[in-house]
């Protein structure tokens, strides 16, 4: 029981951190998007030939688009490549964090179900999970046909079918 509680708490922290990190890197990546890059070129060209030489003008540019205007100082031909590389790096971090959060979420779910099973009743917990799973399958956008619905609820139906064959119609709903 202690191990399950430890798993729940530690992976909840990991989940929160990874979701926060994913949002952070997504916002960083968005700042370097093509639209922002165009804006920077427009700002830079509007201010003169390339990047602004005047300190105040550069400051205004810098405040508007911090990341990209730092890149404005670099050789003009390299700007787009650098921005794209940096954006790709941020998005790679984001995708990795999404995978971490997904895995943490699955582990939290399994731990929570195990916790309820141990503390209360295994069959009642699985029963509740089965009902919720079926409702989720019915309301999910992923289920678009009867075949996909069957695939989604296959674990639930196989479990109860196994219980029925193994223990019979009365004992299948009892623990032990």
């Amino acid at each position: 029981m202690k191990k399950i509680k430890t798993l729940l708490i530690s992976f909840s922290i990991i989940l929160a951190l990874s979701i926060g990190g994913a949002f952070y890197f997504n916002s960083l990546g968005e700042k370097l998007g093509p639209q922002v890059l165009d804006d920077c070129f427009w700002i830079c060209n509007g201010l003169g030939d390339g990047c602004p030489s005047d300190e105040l003008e550069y400051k205004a540019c810098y405040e508007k688009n911090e990341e990209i205007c730092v890149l404005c100082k670099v050789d003009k031909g390299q700007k787009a490549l650098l921005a794209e590389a940096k954006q790709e790096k941020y998005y790679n971090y984001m995708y990795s964090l999404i995978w971490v959060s997904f895995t943490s979420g699955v582990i939290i779910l399994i731990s929570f179900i195990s916790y309820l099973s141990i503390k209360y009743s295994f069959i009642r917990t699985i029963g509740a999970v089965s009902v919720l799973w079926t409702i989720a399958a019915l309301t999910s956008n992923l289920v678009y046909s009867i075949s996909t619905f069957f695939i989604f609820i296959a674990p639930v139906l196989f479990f109860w079918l196994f219980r029925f064959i193994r223990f019979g119609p009365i004992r299948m709903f009892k623990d032990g």
Partner: protein
Amino acid sequence: MKEFLACIAAIIAALIFTAIFGAIIAVISTVIASWGLATYSVGGVLHTSGNIINIFLSFYVGYKVYKRITRVKVNQAEE
């Protein structure tokens, strides 16, 4: 009458099992074919052979369900 109802329950269980297992087989055979482990035609063969296995398995499941229901009735009669 009770055996008749058990038979109907077994048929329903077998049909549900066939539907679920058939959908799973369709997905698995498509995935195997998409990996390049098999050509498209071999993927079709996998699907067909999976369906044949599915039919036998559904008969087995139906039989087990029927047996379980009738056995419970016999046990209750003994009690």
